């Protein structure tokens, strides 16, 4: 049996240590869902002054009960990441570098590209004269990491509005 009476001695708390508290006091908390895999862990997102200060598991979630995996625990870094692109980047054909462009300009240019490609590529009827109303020269890919509302708008605009056939995502089976 080995023991020393050290821990019972009075401890010298510095003024700062004595004031120790979590940074969550006074923050705004928002309920979220982890963006990585499909387990669907609940997350609590804390902000202060519009700035993200912490993301952790939501202990009330019946699926995850407050826990997260390393990726879920890393969600904070996804948003605060210095490598994140914050402005529209544009690469002209055959160019060797990006240019930064205004968002409005990009949206306008993309809409024009879509219209031109659709007008050139839309097939109303096939060789047998059967109805097609479809565009095969444009496609979209992605959705399994997006919200269902985003997916719905992609399907509605590209399939229902533009007649694009290849509207696809990672999901297969």
């Amino acid at each position, binding site marked *: 049996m080995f023991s020393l009476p050290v821990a019972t001695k009075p401890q010298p708390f510095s003024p700062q240590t004595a004031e120790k508290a979590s940074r969550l006091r006074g923050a705004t908390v928002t309920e979220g869902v982890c963006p990585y*895999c499909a387990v669907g862990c609940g997350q609590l997102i804390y902000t202060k002054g519009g700035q993200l200060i912490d993301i952790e598991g939501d202990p009330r979630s019946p699926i995850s009960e407050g826990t997260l995996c390393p990726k879920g625990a890393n969600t904070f870094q*996804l948003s605060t990441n210095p490598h994140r692109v914050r402005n529209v980047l544009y690469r002209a054909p055959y160019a060797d570098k990006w240019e930064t462009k205004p968002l409005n300009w990009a949206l306008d240019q993309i809409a024009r590209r879509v219209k031109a490609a659709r007008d050139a590529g839309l097939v109303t009827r096939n060789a047998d004269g059967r109805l097609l109303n479809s565009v095969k020269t444009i496609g979209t890919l*992605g959705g399994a990491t997006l919200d*269902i509302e985003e997916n719905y708008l992609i399907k509605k605009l590209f399939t229902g509005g533009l007649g694009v056939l290849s509207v696809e995502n990672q999901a297969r089976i």
Partner: protein
Amino acid sequence: MPGLGASFGRGAATTFQQDLANSDCILIMGSNMAEAHPVGFRWPMKAKAKGATLVHIDPRFSRTSALCDIYIGIRAGSDIAFLGGLINHVLTHDKWFKEFVLAYTNAATIVDEGFRDAEDLGGLFSGFHPESGTYNANEGKWAYEGEGEDGQTKAAHGKEGTHGYGLEGGGRAEDRPHRDPTLWHPHCVMQILRRHFARYTPEVVARVCGCAPDDVGRIADLLCANSGRERTSAIVYAVGWTQHTTGVQMIRAAGILQLLLGNVGRPGGGIMAMRGHSSIQGSTDVSTLYDLLPGYLPQPTPDEGHDTLESYVKKEGIPTGYWANFSKFVVSLLKAWYGDAAAAENDYRFGWVPRVDGDYSHLPTMDRMARGEMTGYFLFGQNPAGGGMNAGLQRAGLRKLDWLVVADWFETESAVFWKDDPNGPPAAEVGTEVFFIPAATSPEKDGTLTNTQRLLQWHNKAMDPPDDCRSDTWFVYHLGKRLKDLYAGSTDPKDQPLLNLTWDYEHGAGHRLPDGTVSCIRDEPDVELVLQEINGYRVGEIDPRTGRPRLLKGFSELKADGSTACGCWIYSGVFPEPDRNRANERKLSDNPVQPEWGFAWPHNRRMLYNRASADPEGRPWSDRKKYIWWDAEKARWDGPDEPDFEPTKPPGYRPPDGAKGMAAIAGDQPFIMKPDGLGWLFAPKGAKDGPLPTHYEPVESPVGNLLYPRQPTSPTVRTFEGPLNRIAHTPTAEFPVVATTFRLTEHYLSGPMSRFNSWLNELQPEMFVEMSPELAAERAITHGDWVTVRSARTAIECRAMVTRRVPSLLVDGRVVHQIGLPFHWAFAGEVVGGNANDLTALVAEVNVSMHEGKAFACQVERGRHDGRQPSPTKHPVAWPTRDPIPNTPAAAQPEGGFTHDE
């Protein structure tokens, strides 16, 4: 998702993750749950703590295996053989759950005597057309006796891939199919099943899989001992099953096993499909898929039967079971899309929906792109240049585009393929115009994710995205508005779908952030309005509370007369009142099912087919496994969950002759999406590669098919062979090593959400290949060496992780080596490396156009690869941010900022 759909009726996990804690035995196969879904694995661990046995069957001993009670190593791609062995064991030892099977499955149903099994035709079913490599189920007589031809598009042979999902195995029995409850009829399903699986003996299975013959019986006995009235076993799978050219049939085999053991619709039972992406189930339901309209409605084809709405409904609808409401779903969708322009007199603009005349799924599209047939492409958070199968071909495709739009957070491989691909041409030779749209992260936007158990969970916007970053909702909405402006005034009929598309999701009032401040993005669409449209509303009936159309309470309110609009019928009920977003409800109660946490489709049912948790008379099978039961006093089904059944239909209900719709489903038939209300051991419809699972080798395997030597690989598989996509056909001697890809806990997919993140990169910084000491010795490789892994497509280099965790196996008398390749690295990010996806082939399973990343052939050599190697495109950043936390004293600042020293 036809694997589950063909067996049970819906292509979704039959249960929910928390229920795994109620299992007595969990078979994890085709899934590395502890690594890929660590938090989901919490629930099997709870079962284990209560005494359940966990079994892991996998080519690799992973972190999942480490936590399971039993691990069995099998050769990648041999899963159907093992499952067939289990089924055979259950049948030959008469261990199946008799009352359950007789009452709730089609075991007694008589199949058309014209049907010929793979046993009779050397590995092929009847109805095969070798010239097209497809089956015609009608010609092959896969139907029930007396049922006649099926008119549905997917039943006929023809264009592969089209309507892969379709209606989940619908059929059109006009009369109740003939049954032989004695199970002696030679053409009854049970007898066909017995004959079909007879050759999957333990010895044969061991030769194919590389396991010990005892293993089959050991696992089968374990499952049987933990099934029945008192006990239940669950099966968990993930992409380890789906990413095969026989993936649908692997899941079918699991479905057959669970039906035989009576483990469907019961607590602790079922099949838990673990999906890989946050909303992969949702993106299938709402369907950003080329051949599906929202809610699993088949997108029309140029087929004659699809000329008019009426003929389309007649052809694709089913008269009995819940799909009898088909026309309501379609008309309501068209009303949601085209609004007032859709009316009865113009067929609700059914003609505006584009017709699918081929396979436009991801892989064939990339093949067409690489041949220069595509003009423009959008990528929303997907990275084909790094994560696509045969990624080299996919990059070649992107280089042939006129323009490409990438919406993402980081400069992924797909954003910088024109400048940073070490083996690509110089930028000056790449003509693709690229627009990179910076995206918002999930805490920066509102929206709903549908998780792996069909649960819709809303996430709230916590803050504004920085600078020009925008949600994809914002981008698509405003792109749509600009396109409408560009086409404004056009009278061309082809432009009318776009001009008439309902497209109004403006925020009524300025939208505020949770802290009360006004968002600096003034034109963000109101995502709740989108969800309300998905939920559905009554056209022309204004809710005085909102001044907008009255919302639907659920899909039972849908009408086929144009008076309702609904964007995705299976989600109806998620937004029943203007102030009640059920996806955003987070109420807890004493009910262990927690029905008020989020919203599960359909109709908030957490466990599907749960009528099967009671016996035919409506009593729980046992007290221990009580879930949903018939309460005779209240004359309704009761229990902790919503019954997946008509709530007041008594167990003794028998349909009158000629009954249609739900009236045709008896009170003891739990599988309401099936026309006969039964679980399908034999699937006359629903899978294009056969009514029963059959073992075929992967497209690339060093071993031939030991079960059906004349038929080495799936007869219906499609390969896109060409100079960019060479295939080493089975059996290959040139590439003798079996490769399988896998996910590490520390990374995500091809890395777009992980390889730009220092906290994850330090955990797994470099590409490696796992191999056995035997293989290493054979190639003179030392642990940690550089090695080159070569497939018929290309070669990559990586470090050797020599470990006993990837066993070399004795297959049919010879040693077959396997390697495991994590698929997380490519050429963009803080950490880069050899890309396993460059090695894989572009091949497609017939039902869903799935590739075969989980089993392909390769060769391993010591030493570095002579090609050009990637170098990081981003400098490592240790701290994501060192900004002090605002409005916080020094004493409450994080400990590790290392910036606030006094």
